[in-house]
């Protein structure tokens, strides 16, 4: 399934998501959630495979985070976000 996180790691959204996210699941960081992928914020190796993590490019660019995120996080536009929703029957928002 698809998970979205829209809060920075200061909030508990990411932690709660990671507690239950499955190996075949996908995580899309949106809005303030993109701060979770800031290199300095990536602790405890949570970004490791098999987890697939994306971040919405518009949110990354708006926040001046280009080049500051962990390279394992793929930047996506909104149409790619839509295609991920199509590929996963249900989605869970963590905020």
């Amino acid at each position, binding site marked *: 399934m698809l998970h979205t996180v829209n809060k920075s790691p200061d909030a508990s959204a990411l932690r709660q998501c990671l507690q239950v996210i499955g190996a075949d699941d996908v995580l899309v960081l949106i809005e303030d959630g993109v701060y979770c992928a800031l290199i300095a914020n990536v602790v405890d190796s949570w970004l490791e495979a098999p987890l697939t993590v994306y971040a919405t490019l518009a949110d990354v660019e708006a926040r001046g985070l280009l080049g500051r995120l962990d390279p394992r996080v793929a930047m996506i536009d909104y149409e790619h976000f839509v295609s991920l929703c199509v590929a996963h029957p249900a989605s869970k*928002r963590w905020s």
Partner: protein
Amino acid sequence: MKKLLFVQSKPPHGSLQGQEGLDAILAGSAFVDCAVLFTGDGVYQLLSQQHTDALSSRDYAVTYLALEDYGVDQIYCVAADLQQRGLTTADLLLNPTPLDDAEVQTLLQGADAILDF
């Protein structure tokens, strides 16, 4: 028929999300079997002994007691979130089934649509 899962993640009274989330659960129960999951601070919504007069806030928590009458009997909470807050189901006005992380994952995976509040 699709399986709808409602997730309550906010504490009561600090915002309207819990109260309006419960309204959505009751609406859903008229259409289809609904499951409800309380996560994170959402477990606080079920704390018993909420006295709202002095705050002039709505005592909507009592409406949770009507869930059974509405046919909503799949009520769950995240066990770890209850524990972290020093709570047990004895502190709650309902008796949700506490789920471990694997069970929460199964519940989420089994839903056709998830409405997050």
